[in-house]
């Protein structure tokens, strides 16, 4: 494997907030990555620094082995689809695509036109007048048709309905199969994208919480359900990341793959084993990390984050 991005001890500070805290990771060539984490976790900050649209406070970032800042040799091979991309007031999608065609050396005009059809995007309407979903479609089309060697999609689906999102995922997979390249996709809809991803990086409060292959994470945890005493006996000594109880029934999520012996023990004890989806795993681990950080007296959390954490809890319970 060849690394196309190397990040070493990257830190980004905005006055008293730390958006990236001593972050290190590598991105391998021709792989689809998921960059996941909650709002304000630092995903966009990291992507902006990698694409030279923001400066690191300290640390080292290499893209194709070089520093990206004002380095046209590097930047011409990158495409960054921002969630809040700004366009000139009187620009239309047609203008945006014409500029993209000039800018990206691998631009595929036929593919772009097919995508415009797929998303039923009006070309002559001013971008300012487009709906949120149509605006997202402009970014998605540029990101896909540019076929840049590294493409960053920062929550590209905002306002896209379920059908349009499926079109995006399908076209992404199809085109990636034909023209392998590095894709970094940041998303909240983890369940929706988990099967597309080969590798997952989870950022939480500016730090890397998970950096692992999706395949390894799929069996990384299990939920044991049944009589509370039996569940607790089984989970004793294991790494418990979540526990809830209803009367005498407990449901406990533990890390670590279950062996055949474990499974036999569970059957004998009359306990049920449930799978843990990538989304559940990330929610649980983020919460567990959050709990640990809250105990840490130095950690201060903004009130707005607590509202989100309540929403995440609700989603997790569904």
């Amino acid at each position: 494997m060849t690394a196309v991005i190397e990040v070493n001890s990257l830190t980004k500070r905005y006055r008293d907030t730390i958006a990236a805290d001593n972050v290190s990771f590598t991105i391998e060539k021709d792989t689809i990555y998921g960059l996941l984490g909650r709002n304000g976790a630092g995903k966009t900050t990291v992507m902006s620094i990698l694409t030279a649209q923001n400066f690191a406070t300290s640390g080292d970032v290499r893209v194709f082995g070089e520093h990206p800042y004002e380095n046209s040799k590097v930047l011409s091979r990158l495409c960054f689809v921002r969630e809040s991309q700004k366009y000139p007031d009187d620009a239309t999608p047609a203008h945006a695509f014409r500029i993209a065609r000039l800018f990206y050396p691998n631009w595929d005009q036929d593919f772009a036109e097919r995508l415009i059809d797929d998303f039923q995007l009006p070309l002559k309407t001013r971008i300012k007048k487009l709906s949120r979903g149509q605006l997202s479609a402009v970014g998605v089309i540029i990101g896909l048709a540019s076929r840049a060697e590294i493409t960053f999609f920062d929550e590209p689906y905002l306002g896209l309905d379920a059908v349009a999102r499926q079109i995006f995922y399908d076209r992404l997979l199809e085109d990636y199969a034909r023209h392998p390249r590095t894709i970094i996709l940041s998303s909240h809809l983890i369940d929706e994208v988990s099967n597309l991803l080969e590798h997952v990086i989870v950022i939480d409060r500016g730090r890397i919480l998970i950096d692992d292959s999706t395949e390894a994470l799929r069996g990384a945890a299990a939920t044991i359900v049944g009589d509370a005493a039996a569940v607790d006996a089984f989970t004793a000594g294991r790494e418990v990341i979540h526990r809830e109880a209803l009367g005498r029934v407990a449901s406990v999520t533990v890390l670590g793959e279950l062996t055949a012996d474990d499974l036999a023990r569970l059957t004998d004890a009359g306990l049920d084993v449930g799978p843990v989806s990538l989304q559940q795993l990330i929610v649980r681990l983020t919460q567990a990390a959050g709990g640990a950080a809250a105990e840490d007296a130095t950690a201060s959390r903004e009130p707005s984050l607590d509202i989100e954490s309540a929403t995440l809890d609700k989603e997790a319970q569904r």
Partner: protein
Amino acid sequence: MIEEGRALFLQIAESVEDSIVDGSLPEEAKAPSTNELAAFYRINPATAAKGIAMLTDKGVLYKRRGIGMFVAAGARELLLTERRTAFAARYLDPLLAEARKIGLDADDLGRLLAERASRLDGSATDAATLTEGTAR
């Protein structure tokens, strides 16, 4: 179709094995390509490739250079043997565990099994007579 919590590449490999076992993918036929599997199951092509690689290692598929992957001779027999070996652990153990929970013993199970089997055979014969009838 895809289950949570179980390695995806295993599930992809099993789906190909299913087609070989039920005969819809005969020996020496061309197996679906990595990209076809990826598009069909909407999964990362690297995952699909891992599933295919597993089947190649097992001797179920083999590669013809520049053409693609094909079902090996003897693949069906190999898979049948493997599945028969795994049958008890995979199906009987959970069955027995649930039966014990609701107070059925092995004899009860035996009776139930015979009863169900004769009913299934009966309906299969009915279906056969029916199709014959319409054909006539």
